[in-house]
């Protein structure tokens, strides 16, 4: 709470602090713009419509998951289970596609939402650390996935004539459905965060949970909803991936939770909760995806460089964020 007050004061007081604040909030956007411009001039194949829409499509799977994670992190929590839940959603969708399009969509969303709900219950009502509970959730979802796929040996295929394939393979105005879906989802997410009492409650809990509780805000319910939505969206990401690849790949999503958390943090959401923007997370996801794409364009670099560069950028961005926060605090 004190930080918001301080931030307001400093913003009105000093233009330097205002600049610092802008850079802190939009740091990832600046890097993204620079990276895109540099890549466009360096590689002829980067700026083509085909490549750009491909980046958008590839980013959309991660972006869906990052939206849920953003709310969880803003409420002061963390969700390590999303990678496993993503994979589980994909396998359930591919299995369900054999029983009709609706089964392919509703079954995974139901199961993944339920996993999120249970985690939320244990965290919010039971008072257990989110880190441990969602870590157990990571194991649980992966175990469930192995169970329904005969220990990972069966890869379910979406039937060739299934309408379910259209969900991620179809296009509107030359841009894949998943991209449109992500835009709509982030639009709704932004409205919920900035224009509803639910969003305000999430930020208040993240800022200081005990104060929010004493003010009579529905802490338990709010946190439960955040984890449920995170599970639901991770499942949706898996559904989209299953539709896109026409199969339920069992080994997906390992380490995805870390990529998603990096994206959210790059986007300026504080891991201590209480601050952040939904749009920032989208920028963070796009930045990671652009890095991946650029690495692919440079033929001589392999995917290990991508990990090194992504990790380094994360460290540099958080270091600069900390530094800018100090500048703000020092401002009169």
């Amino acid at each position: 709470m004190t930080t918001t007050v301080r931030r307001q004061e400093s913003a009105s007081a000093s233009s330097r602090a205002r600049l610092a604040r802008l850079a802190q909030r939009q740091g990832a956007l600046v890097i993204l713009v620079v990276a895109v411009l540099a890549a466009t001039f360096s590689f002829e194949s980067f700026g083509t419509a085909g490549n750009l829409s491909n980046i958008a499509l590839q980013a959309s799977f991660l972006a869906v998951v990052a939206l849920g994670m953003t709310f969880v992190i803003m409420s002061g929590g963390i969700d390590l289970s999303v990678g496993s839940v993503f994979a589980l959603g994909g396998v359930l969708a591919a299995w369900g596609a054999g029983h009709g399009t609706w089964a392919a969509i509703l079954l995974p969303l139901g199961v993944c939402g339920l996993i999120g709900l249970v985690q939320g219950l244990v965290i919010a009502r039971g008072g257990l650390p989110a880190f441990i509970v969602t870590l157990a959730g990571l194991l649980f979802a992966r175990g469930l996935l192995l169970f329904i796929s005969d220990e990972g040996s069966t890869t379910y295929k979406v039937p060739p004539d299934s309408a379910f394939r259209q969900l991620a393979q179809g296009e509107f105005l030359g841009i894949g459905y998943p991209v449109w879906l992500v835009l709509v989802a982030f639009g709704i997410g932004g409205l919920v965060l900035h224009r509803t009492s639910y969003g305000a409650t999430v930020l208040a809990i993240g800022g200081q949970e005990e104060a929010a509780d004493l003010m009579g805000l529905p802490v338990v319910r709010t946190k439960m909803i955040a984890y449920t939505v995170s599970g639901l969206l991770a499942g949706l990401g898996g559904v989209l991936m299953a539709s896109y690849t026409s199969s339920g790949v069992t080994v997906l999503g390992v380490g995805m939770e870390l990529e998603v958390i990096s994206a959210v943090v790059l986007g300026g959401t504080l891991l201590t909760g209480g601050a952040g923007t939904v749009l920032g997370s989208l920028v963070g996801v796009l930045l990671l995806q652009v890095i991946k794409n650029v690495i692919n364009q440079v033929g001589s670099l392999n995917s290990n460089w991508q990990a090194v560069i992504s990790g380094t950028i994360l460290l540099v961005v958080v270091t600069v964020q900390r530094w800018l926060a100090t500048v703000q605090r020092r401002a009169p």
Partner: protein
Amino acid sequence: MTDSTLTRAESGTRRGPRRDADWIRRNGVYVALALLLAVNVAVTDNFVSEDTLRLQLIQVAPVLIVALGMALVIGTEGIDLSVGAVMAIAAALIPLYIGYGTGVAIGIALLAGVASGALAGILVGRVGVQPIIATLGIMVAGRGLANLFGGEIKSIRDPGIVALGSQSVLGVPYVVLIAAAVAALAWFLVRRSTYGRQLVAIGGNKRAAELAGLPVRRVLVTTYVLCGLLAALAGVLLAARSQASDPTKVGLLVELSAITAVVIGGTPLSGGQVRIAGTIAGALLMQLITATLIFHDIPDSTAQIAQAVIVVAAVYVQLGRRRTRR
């Protein structure tokens, strides 16, 4: 803080079930370990044998070493996600420098752990980045670096390294001896040294420790350096044991096992307390759970679901006291 001390004082004066419940909370990990051991002795064929014991101890040693470093970091209210990647880097460096001699190769591998720990410590202690983010960045970049150094799987034939991984003194494998020595050292650091007391004070209340004039930054950097060093040591031992280094696989998800061992051993994630004996028991318990599931041919799926339930149940029982606040 006040809540827990209050209830603890209360339960001291009361008798009966409340007190028993408290005792279980504090010693749950030992009880669970004893129970599971008893079950295995009764049910599992060939469980009580020197070979089984030796194999289990060899397998748990690297995780235990990592968990001890992790316990120190968690004691400062931090966390270190980079340990698995550091293990991979250390293991990848061994075959690269083995040409210069066994000692040099091991030295460089350990040095890499110190460097990575120093980076984490500076980011957390000096810059003020949150531990989970600082070490997440190092983890991602570190795994990439390990793959760049190591490339594909390399086998290690150096006699010194092979001996380290496979020989024993008086029937006790070197690997187990080293783990035991690290555990003793960690216990000494936490219980008997100034550093240990400062660490616990910082984890309990960083601001108060700062105001009291404790060298907060130095202690934080030291702690992450120790954790990195121990992770590198675990990586070296793992490479020595398997006589190979596979940077994509070494130490994968070890951060999660280590954190789990520390937490079910009774060290709270909120810092201010380090339980070395509990951490050892926690690591042994996790190993025994895995081993039990393997002994009885329980498929991976069921094993993972069982682990998830056990972890949550263990933490639930332990947090009982603090949970009453909510």
